């Protein structure tokens, strides 16, 4: 039951945020600084999601040798995305780097 409540709540939250200005309110009724602040939402939120994926495992910061493949793969994917603006470039180069380094670390150390 709790799970269903959470599901409905998450669904409502995502819908209301998407519909906010499209369906309900005119964005021009908000102060200029508020609308300006919105443009920093994607870089901030996405960076806050990506960073733990590279530097944390199991809920704690992990920069031990086990984490090297993830960190390196993330950096490779950042460089690749910078040059080729599509999702596939990041996934292919990142996963290839991750698997390659995991294999190397697993076999030669």
């Amino acid at each position, binding site marked *: 039951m709790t799970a269903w409540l*959470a*599901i409905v709540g998450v669904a409502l939250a995502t819908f209301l945020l998407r519909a906010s200005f499209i369906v309900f309110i005119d964005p021009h009724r908000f102060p200029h600084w508020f609308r300006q602040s919105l443009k920093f939402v994607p870089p901030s939120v996405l960076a806050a999601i990506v960073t733990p994926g590279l530097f944390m495992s199991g809920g704690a910061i992990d920069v031990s040798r086990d984490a090297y493949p993830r960190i390196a*793969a993330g950096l490779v994917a950042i460089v690749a995305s910078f040059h080729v603006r599509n999702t596939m470039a990041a996934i292919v180069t990142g996963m290839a780097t991750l698997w390659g380094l995991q294999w190397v670390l697993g076999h030669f150390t």
Partner: protein
Amino acid sequence: MAPALLGLVPFGFVAGVAAIGSGLTPAQGVALSVLSFSGIAQLVACQLIAVHSPVIVTVAAAAVVSLRFLMYSAAIAAQLAHLDWRWRALLSYLMTDQSYAASARRYSEPGANEHKHWHFLGSAMMLYVPWQASVIAGVVAGAAVPATWSLDFAVVLTFIALLVPAVRTRADLGAAIIAAALALVAAGLPYRLALVVASIGGIAAGMAIEAWRKR
């Protein structure tokens, strides 16, 4: 759209696997995906449901990672203002990072706007159907995927592919760096509060840098 599709399949699959891993039933996992249609919100919700967080905490965390939609909604509202509320509600429900990006490009092209909502609908459905199919595949196949594949890392890579083009100015870069640093510094906070702290800190940093550069 085709490259976006290729990134979406592993992402949807991981979201399906995560739903089962968090203790949701298959029906609940699919319902979460059909109703919220947002990979990031689904994954964050699953992480919090897995540790039996209070419902309000789960919803709040999903809302914070979905604040991007507020920005997309504000950016595209004027172009959709001529449609009736049902169209606007439908397109809102279907809006994602990728379909917003595709439609924003389309709306910036010359030509009347009256029919471009069909393009929005089309690009959104091209993501919606494969997304739900990959989530269902993840829900069904879930536990059978070996952990050594590190499939969850494909999700991080998907976000990197969204993050890099979102950083266009120095203020954007400052926002991203501060948010990244705060996400690690605040990592010890419960209920994924680090995400909230980092996001708000990044936004504030971006605004401060912009204000300072304009002086």
